[in-house]
């Protein structure tokens, strides 16, 4: 008798499981035509999610699916037709996504950050390169106190790192001694506690506990990024097809609209135009 019961319960559970599976599959298919997938840079991801939420409030019938994975992965997903939109937090390299059209959705300043007690307020791009390449191993060499320089970099493949290498390091390698951290947050945490540290991170995320230095006399601020006087700027790109689908186009239009741009500004980015 008990065995019968177990069997019956098992059967019921199986039926429920199957039914729910079928339902999920059906609902997926129903949404299939109306889902825009946005894949790529982890730097843009949080902003794209905010935009998607806001967008969904206006267009109830279009689903936006945002995924991370990194700039390179985003471009690849776009090229393989897995994603409708590729997110990329650096300029495209030659030969990347030839069938796509890169659209600048916002700009992000790259801040060079030091400990709050560090008297150095202003650095040239050459000096920054020396600090990170190891040629300047002491802050004395760039007009600071007698203190060891500890450069803090990001992991290989990070969009922030690639933008930094392109804008500052050019062909020079980042020193092997540079500490490597996995996120803007942990770079900030290290710089906050280490008087000798120097790091780079997204300008929108600097906050007040650490100091972002002037580059060649120019203060790192949203206005200076917008008017072009601050030199360390990287674009946040959406890569879309030359003739995108109607719903993809709607999302893109929303992102570039005044409402979308204002949302990005509020989150700490700089307008595209």
């Amino acid at each position, binding site marked *: 008798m008990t065995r019968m019961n177990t069997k019956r319960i098992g059967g019921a559970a199986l039926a429920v499981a199957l039914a729910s599976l079928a339902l999920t599959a059906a609902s997926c298919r129903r949404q299939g035509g109306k889902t825009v997938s946005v894949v790529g840079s982890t730097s843009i991801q949080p902003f794209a999610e905010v935009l998607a939420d806001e967008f969904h409030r206006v267009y109830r019938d279009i689903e936006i699916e945002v995924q991370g994975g990194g700039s390179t*992965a985003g471009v690849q997903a776009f090229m393989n037709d897995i994603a409708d939109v590729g997110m990329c937090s650096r300029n495209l390299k030659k030969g990347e996504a030839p069938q796509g059209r890169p659209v600048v959705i916002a700009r992000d300043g790259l801040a060079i950050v030091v400990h709050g007690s560090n008297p150095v307020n202003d650095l040239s791009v050459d000096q920054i390169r020396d600090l990170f390449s190891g040629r300047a191993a002491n802050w004395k060499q760039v007009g600071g106190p007698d203190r060891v320089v500890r450069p803090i970099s990001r*992991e*290989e493949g990070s969009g922030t790192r690639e933008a930094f290498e392109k804008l500052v390091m050019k062909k020079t390698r980042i020193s*092997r001694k*540079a500490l490597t951290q996995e996120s803007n947050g942990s770079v900030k*945490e290290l710089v906050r506690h280490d008087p000798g540290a120097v790091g780079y991170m997204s300008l929108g995320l600097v906050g007040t506990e650490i100091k972002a230095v002037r580059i060649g006399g120019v203060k790192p601020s949203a206005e200076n990024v917008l008017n072009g006087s601050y030199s360390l700027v990287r674009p946040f790109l959406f890569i879309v097809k030359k003739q995108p689908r109607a719903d993809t186009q709607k999302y893109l239009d929303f992102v570039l609209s005044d409402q979308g741009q204002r949302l990005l500004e509020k989150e700490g980015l700089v307008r595209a135009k």
Partner: protein
Amino acid sequence: MSQPQLDIAAVEEGPGRPAMSEASPPSQGPGPQRRLKPSTWWSRRSDRVISLMLLAGAMTAIAALAVITAFIFKEGLPLMLEKGLSDFLFSSDWYPQEGKFGIFAMIVGSLAVTLGAMIIGVVFSLSCAIVLTQFCPPRVVSILKPSIELLAGIPSVVYGFMGVVILVPLIRTHLGGPGLSVLAASIVLGVMVLPTVTSISVDALQAVPRSYREGSIALGATSWQTTWRVVLKAARSGIVAAVILGMGRAIGETMAVIMVAGNPLDVPTSPLDPVRTLTSNIAMEMGYASGDHRRALFATGVTLFVIIMILNVIALTVSRRRAVRSKAR
């Protein structure tokens, strides 16, 4: 109905059985038990079905191991051979964008951190194990042992976080350097391997026959002399196995190490230098890597795999030698 069948089963299995079970290993199946219950067609069949199911379950574990091994070797080995084994293992030029993959600094890093962790971990675990088995009233043991074992249940991120928040600033202000260092990683890992090494060492020490200890005391040795010269000597191979298992755990740990080691590409020259281990290298870069870079990370995994295999083989040999010796006794 079932009465005659029981007899038949007994008769069927009866003859020849005792003689055979002497010679053959016990893999022949549950012989003696079967005679105890009524053996119907179904119960005989279900026996076989269940044992087959259990076998399949056991095989899954082995299959998983085989698949993982095959996969990482397939992904990683070709690149190691392409770039040259010595270039891959003995160069510290890790510049994935330029196609340079040298993991020497990380091998040194992994070994340095593991060595440090073992020095710290073994000193504390062994003291724990000795106190718990030789000098401790049972009441205290019943509190101490579970609390040490509880350490094993703390997630590694928590260890890493404690390291970053407490240990790293301490090292930076009192000893110098960036704080993120071989020393910090060793201390964190040392604490993490403590439960493993302690509990296996405790088992090894408890397995030493009581008569050894009694004999030594009877000959006039002090309690400490007995522990040091007799009990520890007798449990030596078990303790070695414990240490090697702890080593495997230390070398494979990732999360806590990423947080406290600093992860530069340089070969560390002092305990206060930051360091990148094989595991952190894989974990940090896997998210972005594609093409050769990805394959190089798999090759890093192959290297780690081989190192851990070597450690495991040593551990197995040591503990097997112990088993053989105790049988000979």
